[in-house]
């Protein structure tokens, strides 16, 4: 079919839209380089003083550290729980297991403000407010569905006969899991781990409700900076976050390319 004028026009429009999606975020880069003490576009000279402040300020550094600890713990916990759960659901695959799967995906779609309310409500009597454990647990529940999705996608292409073959050859359940199933679904597990990390690293709504002084994550500090809307250190932090996004995107792209070539061969 010949490409019509309309399609041509639409394609140009789509490119413009896609650039509209990505470019606004880049404004943080010039703003972070301003030599002034307030948020502004640099005129003429550039300065790295706000990056210097970001990386020497005790507050910002502790926020980076806390967010890192919470995101890594969330990623590990959510990946472990999500992966074994996905394998279980894949093994059972009955009407009930599909219901359970739908139920377990709910934290992903229920509005975050409701999740925040729920955790806030329960964390008060449990004494988990404003603690690492509280944040990690909450983030794990929100992130596990991501892992469930990516691992289930990998399992969908895994041949169940391999599992039977392994058992017929005398391997125990545990050995089969470790030596046969896990290696074949590795790309899904890694993708899930990255997704879980990003979710926790970037989470603000639930964090606003269940943290206060002790635990002050990076999104929380950025949120404060954005609301005060004066200190350009926020722009420097935004640039660092954009850089991290690009790096994890590269990782993810490499992994999924490897995944694709694996399933092709």
């Amino acid at each position, binding site marked *: 079919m010949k490409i019509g004028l309309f399609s041509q026009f639409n394609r140009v429009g789509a490119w413009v839209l896609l650039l509209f999606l990505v470019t606004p975020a880049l404004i943080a880069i010039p703003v972070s380089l301003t030599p002034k003490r307030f948020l502004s576009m640099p005129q003429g000279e550039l300065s790295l003083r706000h990056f210097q402040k970001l990386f020497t300020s005790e507050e910002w550094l502790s926020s980076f550290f806390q967010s890192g600890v919470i995101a890594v713990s969330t990623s590990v916990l959510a990946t472990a729980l999500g992966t074994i759960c996905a394998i279980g659901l894949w093994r059972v695959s009955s009407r009930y297991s599909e219901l359970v799967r739908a139920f377990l995906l709910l934290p992903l779609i229920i509005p975050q403000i409701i999740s925040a309310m729920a955790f806030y409500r329960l964390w008060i009597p449990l004494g988990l407010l404003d603690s690492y454990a509280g944040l990690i647990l909450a983030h794990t529940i929100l992130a596990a569905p991501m892992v469930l999705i990516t691992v289930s996608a990998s399992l969908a292409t895994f041949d169940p006969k391999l599992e039977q073959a392994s058992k017929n050859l005398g391997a125990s359940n545990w050995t089969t899991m470790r030596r046969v199933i896990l290696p074949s679904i590795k790309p899904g597990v890694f993708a899930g781990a990255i997704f879980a990390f990003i979710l926790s690293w970037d989470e603000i709504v639930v964090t606003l409700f269940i943290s206060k002084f002790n635990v002050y994550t990076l999104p929380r500090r950025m949120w404060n900076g954005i609301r005060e809307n004066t200190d350009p250190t926020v722009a420097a932090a*935004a640039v660092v976050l954009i850089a991290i996004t690009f790096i994890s995107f590269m990782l993810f792209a490499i992994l999924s390319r490897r995944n694709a070539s694996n399933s092709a061969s």
Partner: protein
Amino acid sequence: MHALRKHIHPGWLIIAPLLVLVIALYLGPILNILWLSVTDPEPGFGNYAKLGESDALIRILWTTVRICIITTLFSVTLGYSIAYAMVHCHQRQKNYMLTLLLVSFWISILVRTFSWLMLLGRNGLVNVALEDIGLIAEPIAFMRNELGVLIGMIHYMIPYAVLPLLVSMQSIDQRVMNASRNLGATGAQTFWRIYLPLTTPGVVASTLLVFILSLGFYVTPAVLGGGKVLMVAEYISVQLLVTLKWGTAAMLAACMLFGVLAMLWIMSRFMKLSTVFGGAAR
């Protein structure tokens, strides 16, 4: 023990940890909130009656619904255009487009909100640029009003709108369109009478997904609305953290929750839900 084994698949053993965690720490408090909505401050449907009495509440609900509808309309229309272009171009170009889409998907919501703050403010880049080229004499108020909230929300939602549409467009048999053209239909006729109806499931899924996500949106309205545009999510947080009125907040959360579940149910009629979520992961 053996009898139990026979009836219960051993796979449930490894499903259990996550399931128990989610039931105890997530479903439990949500049910508790639903319960609160009819018991706090006193038993009965007093909280729900406020929906009919309080003008402030009605205004907030109306603002929320209006903003969500406009956001959804724009996101799905623009998303349709992007998805259509992606499906109908060469693989190489498509990969570039997908990369841009996913990068925007991944950039932190806080970074994006911050950027809009820099761009749309009274002395923001957009106003300065427009003044410099002489298009406007006075800065346009983009922020602290619905316009700013809409720009921020549509920008955030477009990628979510595209993914279900992509899934649905990719499954269409291109030969149907060729047949239509061979039978003498014009390009426009083929699009309106064949292509668009075939993508209806995708459009429905994308509409509901964006609507659901917009409904509970907190960050962008709170920052770009600057307190002037009060939506349900922000109102709930004020009720909980400032005025400590659990009852009203719980009632609003319950309404939102039932709305979302109803929409999910409709959505599941049109599309396998996992493909909507899986779209980003594959």
